[in-house]
């Protein structure tokens, strides 16, 4: 009898185990995340409108290896759009604009390639490009039907309208070219330069030239509303994703230069910089920089090296840093007021078309990024200049990895608005892209980035008005 019992025991154990494993769902391989889906979005004719951010402009230039990782190209790739269906105005390396590169990490010393070193590679495409982002474009440029070629001459001196838009026969404005493609999906991110021109010149040059401010919010509202209505009506079954304007003071162009001079040998703070600031009545005075409210621009470095703005006790000239290198508290307030008004316009358009427009809250996203950074798949990004990995050497435009982060914000908005499940970009699979020469790290108060390296980016935003 005993052997009978033991046989039964063994049989019972084995069947109990088999039953357990088969019935226990925890051990089965199941999909935790739903399969990729484009939801109610048809990506077959995908058009992107915007400025340098949309074009994939990076470290002072537009060039092929950066354009391949523009955020619209990232979105197209993630949504399964074949390359042939998402055409961009590719430019050979090292691009047009003067690509900035690190010559030496000691300093670090930053230089540039020649401005017109690259040539268009895809200029015979017999239809408008899918990526219609034009570096330097303000909102008005998207609907402006004046000659593209004329914008390459002074005062704009911007070659990109000609490179991206080519011929009025394809459509006489970016919006006209977008509609000529009969798009099924459109992204729009425009308005950044309407305020950046003012902010990157320390409040000395505005959208309408020297001595003016950001684009007037009422003008912005009228232009933006008309443009979006034209797009919504002209592509009446298309879906849209539109992004608002980030706080410009969240970028390293404004946050890199410290508020005081540090001894280059010890790294110890010696004295606060002296800058030109505004009184409430608009007049200028020379005063100590307010570390909490003022921003010294990346363009100030040549002057700081020459001792301008550096107190005499620290070996400087004691003369104040000129207004154009400083965004003081009043100018910051004016910049932020313009951004808030633009964003309110953008939000109300999106809210009026909830089934057609997904709103990408770039303002909140980039403020959060500036505060917390990003950690993913062994890659760490922050908004620190050079070492952060998110912003390129011009201090304004993201790197390829930074653009991938931006693309993921668009994808988030598309997924939640249109019931889609477009997979996000794995940032660790996007190549890092700050060009590096040779290396020897030391400690210093500010990087050795020359005004001449940054000028092409500024000229792009404002034409030659921004030159010293």
């Amino acid at each position, binding site marked *: 009898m*005993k*052997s009978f019992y*033991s*046989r039964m*025991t*063994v049989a019972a*154990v*084995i069947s109990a*185990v*088999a039953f*357990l*494993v088969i019935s*226990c769902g*925890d*051990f*089965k*391989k*199941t*999909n*935790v*995340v739903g*399969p*990729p889906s484009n939801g109610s979005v048809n990506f077959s004719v995908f058009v992107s409108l915007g400025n340098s951010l949309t074009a994939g402009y990076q470290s002072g230039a537009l060039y092929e*290896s*950066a354009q391949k990782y523009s955020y619209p190209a990232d979105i197209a790739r993630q949504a399964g759009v074949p390359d042939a269906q998402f055409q961009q105005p590719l430019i050979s*390396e*090292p691009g047009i604009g003067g690509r900035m*590169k*690190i010559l030496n990490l000691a300093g670090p010393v930053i230089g540039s390639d020649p401005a017109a070193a690259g040539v268009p590679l895809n200029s015979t495409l017999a239809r408008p490009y899918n990526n219609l982002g034009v570096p330097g474009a303000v909102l008005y440029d998207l609907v402006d039907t004046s000659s593209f070629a004329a914008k390459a001459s002074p005062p704009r001196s911007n070659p990109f309208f000609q490179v991206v838009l080519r011929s009025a026969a394809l459509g006489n404005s970016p919006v006209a070219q977008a509609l000529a493609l009969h798009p099924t999906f459109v992204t729009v991110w425009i308005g950044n330069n309407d305020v950046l021109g003012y902010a990157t010149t320390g409040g000395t040059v505005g959208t309408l030239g020297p001595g003016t401010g950001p684009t007037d919010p009422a003008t912005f509202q009228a232009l933006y509303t008309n443009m979006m209505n034209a797009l919504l009506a002209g592509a009446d079954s298309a879906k849209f994703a539109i992004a608002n304007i980030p706080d410009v003071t969240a970028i390293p162009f404004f946050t890199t230069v410290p508020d005081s001079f540090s001894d280059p040998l010890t790294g110890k703070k010696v004295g606060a910089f002296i800058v030109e600031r505004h009184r409430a009545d608009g007049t200028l005075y020379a005063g100590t920089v307010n570390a909490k409210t003022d921003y010294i621009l990346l363009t100030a470095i040549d002057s700081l090296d020459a001792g301008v703005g550096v107190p005499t006790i620290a070996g400087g000239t004691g003369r104040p840093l000129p207004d154009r290198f400083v965004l003081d508290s009043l100018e910051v307030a004016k910049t932020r007021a313009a951004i808030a008004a633009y964003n309110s316009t953008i939000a109300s358009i999106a809210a009026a078309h909830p089934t057609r427009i997904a709103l990408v809250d770039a303002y909140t996203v980039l403020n959060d990024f500036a505060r917390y950074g*990003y*950690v*993913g*798949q*062994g*890659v*760490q990004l922050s908004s620190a200049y*050079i*070492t*952060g*990995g998110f912003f390129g050497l011009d201090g304004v435009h993201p*790197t390829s*990895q930074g653009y991938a982060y931006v693309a993921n914000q668009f994808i988030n908005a598309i997924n939640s608005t249109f019931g889609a*499940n477009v*997979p*996000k970009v*794995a940032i*660790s*699979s996007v*190549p*890092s*892209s*700050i*060009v*590096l*020469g*040779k*290396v*020897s*790290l030391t400690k210093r108060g500010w990087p050795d980035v020359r005004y001449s390296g940054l000028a092409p980016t500024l000229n792009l935003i404002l034409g030659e008005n921004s030159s010293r």
Partner: protein
Amino acid sequence: MASTKRVLALVVTLLSSAAVAFASGYQLNEHGAKAVSMGGAFVARADDPSAIYFNPAGLSFVKGFNVMVGGTLILPSTTFTGPYPNNTETKMNSLTFFPPNAYVTYNFDNGFAAGVGVFTPEGLGTSWPANWVGKYIVTKINLQSFDINPTISYSYKDVIAVGVGFDYALGSVTLERYISTPFSDSLGNPISPFIHMNGNASGTGFNFGVMLKPVKNLSLGFSYRSKITFEANSGTATFSQAGVLASQLPGGSVSTSLPFPETWYAGIAYKGDNYSIEADYQYVGWSAYKQLDINFATHTTLQQNSSLVGNYSNTYLLRAGGEYMINDVWTARAGVFYDKNPIPDAYDLPVLPDADRFGVNVGVGVNLTQHVGLSASYMFLPFKQRTITNSVYGFNGTYNTTANVIGLDLSYRL
């Protein structure tokens, strides 16, 4: 005992291929085909030479002079789906492991018995495609160890037995990954230096066990293995593909240390005329693993010490199994176990993708001759699907693992 040396030489040769994360964490519990085929529930019987591992007190009940040599073939398969919320699946490179074991025991027939065992107490091996999404976390890790465990035991009137042993563990650690930098060369190729670190390590510990047979048919077992701190002080780091960053990444000497956690087993067994059954509880002190610190001897701006935080929790395994002697030649065995993993979700990484798991075991014992016996075991080991959503390394996703484990031991008794 001349054969001992030869056995050791053989084992050392085999060890070049021995490593895998097999029990939860990086512990291995497969040290004898007989025990494994009964779900590893063996501490209250420990009636073959693998008693040296499972419960040294059991040596007193293993009669004569015994040599047992064998190994375990481990065939794992792991996939990672992610990073969350993406659905991209990456399959771990296919790996095969063969941790060996060898035991020699002698019973003096006056209550005393002695023996020495060589086995692989800890092991870990993962290898991912070089260009995979987690390449900045790990592409390859390999922890190899083996343990030399001389042991003595004493029994009193076959009612109570105690055993004690000394552990000397040695082995090696290899770790490879890419490092993310913001930089590219002038052709736009990213500069992602590759780091290869390896070093030899050693440590010491002890073990003891007790076995009680208070009434006929019933037996109780308890055994303890101490923590061993595996010190690797003479490791080497080598960077490659560093491009212009090479001068900042000289590599050179590195050191690290890794704990092998303390473990204890308690079990109860019942022996009938031609069958026996047992249930065990195994406790593993994984909280000893806080983090893996990698310390460089030379520091530069870019070459800094790093640590891989684990914050493991103490954990347990439940085991049950038995055997049935069909006749003088054949014995059938079966068992099951449940293995609770020690790694908090936030720290679960592709370095060691861990999950709770359930083992189903079957096996046979064959007495080939009066002196020669053979034990074979098969284990199917499904892991619970594990989805990480709160990774501190920003590496969220889903892991699926299964493994097939085949064990074989040949024993010779005089």
